[in-house]
């Protein structure tokens, strides 16, 4: 019993950390730059599928499945997502805020359609399986592997967090905030708003691609049903509830929302008869929607919002 609970908690923590990377990516785009990305799940899927196609054990019926090493898959997944985000950003970054939302939402839908329909590459609705887990030979029981993966994820999240904090305090990060607050003023100072936005969009999406690649190498298979639009809304709820514009807030939000989601899932399976599973799942999604609306209405800053930054010369 106790080991069961412990294994579950380890698994749970791994998922929270992967979602934390997604939320950090979104925070860079929305929290610091004001870019409305409604297609998070699309970039997550690009990373996941790139990794799966490159690393899965070869099978004759598929075009991909090259059986390459884990690290190659991770790096390539980030590169592929960055390239896709750059291309999409070139087309859409100049759009009005809510048009960008519509465009990115459409991109995510299209990517899911490709994943579902291009069977020789993606395995269609079957998905791809036999994706190698890193060092699975050394950590050969499920629990030991999950523990090792948890440490790996924790190290990665810490590195991503530290890097983001550093670049956001750098001149580059300050320009992002300047553009978000007053684009005209930033442009008047000679900053290319479009260029900085595109960079933030690509960097944030790359993190989403990394999260996708980590997810498939943790789970060991990939299927188009892991990339439904609900994930995008969950990640938003995480960022908004935690506090957009604050990286610690993003991570706390990921933990909070995933706890609510998982706890409500357990409650639903215990309380709702299996014949009404669809209704139970609906209740879970309604909770996410309500959380999003209530936070926006009553606590727009989230749990810990963006810290006020005042110039150290302000008193002079």
């Amino acid at each position, binding site marked *: 019993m106790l080991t069961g609970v412990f294994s579950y908690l380890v698994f749970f923590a791994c998922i929270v950390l992967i979602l934390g990377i997604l939320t950090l990516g979104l925070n860079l785009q929305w929290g610091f730059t004001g870019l409305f990305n409604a297609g998070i799940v699309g970039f997550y899927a690009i990373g996941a599928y790139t990794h799966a196609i490159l690393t899965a054990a070869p099978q004759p019926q598929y075009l991909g499945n090259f059986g390459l090493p884990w690290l190659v898959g991770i790096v390539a997944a980030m590169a592929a997502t960055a390239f896709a985000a750059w291309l999409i950003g070139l087309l859409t970054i100049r759009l009005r805020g809510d048009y960008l939302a519509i465009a990115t939402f459409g991109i995510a839908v299209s990517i899911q359609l490709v994943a579902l329909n291009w069977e020789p590459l993606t395995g269609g609705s079957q998905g791809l399986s036999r994706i190698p887990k890193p060092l699975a030979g050394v950590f050969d029981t499920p629990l030991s592997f999950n523990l090792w993966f948890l440490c790996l994820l924790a190290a990665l999240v810490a590195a991503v967090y530290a890097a983001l904090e550093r670049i956001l305090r750098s001149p580059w990060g300050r320009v992002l905030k300047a553009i978000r607050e007053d684009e005209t003023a930033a442009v008047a100072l000679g900053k290319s708003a479009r260029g900085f936005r595109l960079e933030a969009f690509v960097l944030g999406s790359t993190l989403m691609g990394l999260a996708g690649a980590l997810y498939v190498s943790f789970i060991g298979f990939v299927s188009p049903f892991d990339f439904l639009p609900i994930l995008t*809304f969950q990640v938003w709820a995480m960022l908004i509830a935690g506090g957009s514009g604050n990286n610690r807030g993003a991570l706390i939000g990921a933990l909070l929302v995933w706890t609510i989601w998982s706890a409500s899932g357990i409650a639903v399976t215990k309380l709702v008869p299996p014949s009404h599973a669809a209704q139970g799942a609906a209740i879970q*999604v309604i909770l996410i929607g309500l959380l999003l609306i209530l936070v926006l209405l009553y606590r727009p800053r989230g749990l810990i919002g963006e810290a006020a930054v005042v110039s150290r010369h302000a008193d002079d």
Partner: protein
Amino acid sequence: MIGQAIADGILTGAIIALGAIGVSFTLQIMRFANFAHSELLTWGAYLALVFVAFAGPGTPTGPFSFGWQLIAAAALAALLTGLVAWAVDYLVFRNLRRRGAHPLTMVFAAFGAALVMRNMVVLIWGHGSHYYTRELQMSVELLPGVRMLPDQIFILALALAVVVCLHGFLTYSRTGMAMRAMAESPPLAQVCGVEVDAVVRWTWILSGALAALAGVFAGLTPQLHPEIGFNLLLALFAAAILGGTGSLVGAVIGGLLVGLAENLSLLFISAGYKTAMPFLVLLLVLLVRPQGLFGEKA
């Protein structure tokens, strides 16, 4: 082949157009992209189902698969969905507006509202499909090789009538004029004594009512399911933006073009990619003519 695709495209287009009018109005008058609009279609379709469950779809009249009861159900659903739209505004968007929230905050809230509304439908009516009527009907050959069901012809005629009435309302009634004034310039409209709250209320009620009709029509050809509106979301936005936001004629023509693009594309690509077509149209419009066909300013 092509003739049939065009006929199907016009039918889908008419349904998209009715939904896109509301999207276009909210984009122009309320100044944000209401991603919850597609759920008004779903609610409209299911509210009509409630009335049909009580009164029955009616004995088939003439060549149609339903009687007057379904038409009455659609009218009641339109009224109630208008009230639902207004209630969502009252509970959510109004409070955000009062606080002077950023338009993108409204979009976030709209996505939240959409999640709640769509899953309420699953909670109440379940995940499966429903039908207004199980009556079978024979298609009619309109032109050589072009067949349509009588119900579909009825939908086209009714959609046309609704659009003509709406055009009259916007052109001649005081409320219609106030709505157009708000669409053009909210500050100027306010200076001229337009009552903003009243315009907002009417915008939601009209958008909701039209969305409900679109939902009922979508449900009649041939079935209802909880994603009936959500699946049309991109098409609605593509049509509204293609037509130019705030323009009634634009939304209708945009809807028809998107419907045609979707159905004609089936001649070239596999059906699995059909739902991506509205998005490609949208992307093209945003790149080439972001103000839309009938929009005025960029």
